């Protein structure tokens, strides 16, 4: 790989723009990060409840099929016929016993094993495949799979630490707050592109500094909690992190405490000249995790996955790289099987803050595109990430980029940059 003297002498307080825009670095990211020792989120087990269920997903640029076989085993298979490379499965999801290639009808089972192919012995004793052609050696490419509390992860490597160790003890309790063992219920998907680099989305989850400045929805409507408490949790490698922040609105302990009186009282403490929400119910959220004191979490899992628990919205998103200059963001929103209609209604209402039309994340998507234009500008420059000092330690204050620096500590190690 070229120019290993890429990183400026200042170290982690600088990020060279080339990591967002250079084609060679991008190819190395695919090889070393996404095809290396990483756990890549691919599905929720709730999407595959029965034998034969499958969904399509991605590991970075690689299309995969996530399946559940009759014995319950989950497989993650590259969606590519072993014969000529035709994309096998076109449906987003379904239930099947086999995947048959439309071209020559090679047929594979739910674990990717080649079950059979037409005219194996030729026609009239002529042609076909020789006696040495062993079906067992021509299955689909399979990835290593692990699951944790209902989330499914895949890896091209057979040598990745167990998931709890991989996400790290600082982050695991917040993962397990959401994935607490209760069966999940999928509420829907959002998918959109963004003309930006995949790391830009992930860094955003590690940057509490921007939130007060870019996302003015709450402030515009007079909803602001002064000195909003923030904790930044980071795993030992630096790759995964969790922002734990005081919720923008008070999470109501019970429905009895709740709006309209609750929200109205909360809004009253703010300046009279702010705009008023015509429908304050959009902010009405219940405290739902017993050990939680009114916080929201934004968690990233190395390399490109993020989980959110905000108001009553729960979701996971993937920043799937499509070259250095574009991502596809695939979101899955979910709740629990045990949710009543009222809770489901809240989760759906609070989804208004997220996705491409999100009242909060819409701001990010606009800025990330401008960010990509800047980091692609020749000659390349550097980002300066000095908020909260130059270290990579965990923090308990809001104006810090420590988790961004920690991410690049890990990135540089994996990329040998």
């Amino acid at each position, binding site marked *: 790989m070229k120019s290993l003297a890429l990183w400026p002498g200042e170290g982690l307080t600088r990020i060279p723009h080339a990591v967002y825009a250079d084609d060679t670095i991008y190819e190395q990211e695919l090889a070393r990060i996404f095809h290396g020792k990483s756990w890549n989120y691919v599905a929720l087990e709730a999407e595959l409840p029965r034998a034969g269920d499958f969904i399509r997903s991605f590991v970075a640029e690689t299309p995969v099929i996530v399946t559940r076989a009759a014995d319950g085993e989950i497989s993650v298979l590259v969606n590519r016929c072993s014969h000529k490379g035709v994309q096998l499965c076109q449906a*987003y*999801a379904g239930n099947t016993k086999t995947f048959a290639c439309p071209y020559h009808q090679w047929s594979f089972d739910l674990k990717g094993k080649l079950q059979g192919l037409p005219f194996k012995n030729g026609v009239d004793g002529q042609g076909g495949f020789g006696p040495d052609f062993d079906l067992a050696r021509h299955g689909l490419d399979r990835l290593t799979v692990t699951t944790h509390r209902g989330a499914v992860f895949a890896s091209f490597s057979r040598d990745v630490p167990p998931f709890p160790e991989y996400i790290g003890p600082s982050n695991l309790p917040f993962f397990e707050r959401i994935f607490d063992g209760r069966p999940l219920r*999928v*509420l*829907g*998907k*959002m*998918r*959109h*592109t*963004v*003309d930006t680099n995949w790391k830009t989305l992930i860094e955003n989850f590690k940057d509490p500094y921007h939130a007060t400045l*870019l996302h*003015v*929805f709450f*402030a*515009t*409507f007079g909803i602001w909690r002064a000195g909003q408490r923030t904790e930044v949790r980071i795993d030992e490698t630096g790759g995964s992190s969790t922002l734990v922040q005081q919720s923008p609105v008070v999470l109501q302990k019970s429905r009895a405490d709740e709006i309209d009186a609750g929200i109205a009282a909360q809004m009253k403490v703010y300046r009279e000249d702010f*705009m008023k*929400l*015509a*429908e304050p119910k*959009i902010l009405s959220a219940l405290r739902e995790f017993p050990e939680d004191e009114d916080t929201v979490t934004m968690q990233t899992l190395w390399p490109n996955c993020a989980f959110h628990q905000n108001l009553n919205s729960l979701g996971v998103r993937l920043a799937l790289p499509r070259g250095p200059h574009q991502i*596809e963001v695939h979101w899955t*929103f979910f709740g629990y099987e045990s949710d009543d209609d009222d809770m*489901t209604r809240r989760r*759906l*209402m609070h*989804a*208004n803050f997220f*996705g*491409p*039309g999100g*009242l909060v994340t*819409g*701001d990010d*998507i*606009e*800025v990330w*595109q*401008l960010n990509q234009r800047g980091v692609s500008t020749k000659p390349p420059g550097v980002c300066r990430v000095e908020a909260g000092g130059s270290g990579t330690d965990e923090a308990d204050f809001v104006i810090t980029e420590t988790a961004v620096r920690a991410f690049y500590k890990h990135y540089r190690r994996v990329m040998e940059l």
Partner: protein
Amino acid sequence: MNDRELFFEAHVLYTACSAALDALDFSAFLACFAGECSYSIHSKENIDRGWPLAFVSCTSRGMLEDRVAAVQKSSFIVPRVQRRIVSGVHVLGGEPLRSEASFAVFETFDGKATTLFMAGRFEDTLVHEGGVLKFRERRAILDSSIVPNSLPYPL
């Protein structure tokens, strides 16, 4: 009211709504909606799978007003021109009065060529209020399950 008058009124409403959004005239946009109304934008995938999630889900007029206020006052949106082409308005009848139409939205950023942003269809219910036809329920269903970048404005 005969079918011809209703068809004409529906065309006036659909045209007014598109023109208002193309011009970023949000009070004219809101004026297209009844006092009790809902507005949502869905992906084909969520509809096909029977999932309730929507990109945008305003279940009351208040929520729609808040979203429009956010677009104007709090959202960061890179300026662009959007042009809505609404065609095939099809008043299906019934009570409440159902109506459908196809839409395409073109998008133009400063210094860039025009692109097709989105295509899909509206599934609406209409109501007469003060003698004027308005949207009571508007559902935009996108043909694609993938949105190019962001969805900052109503469709």
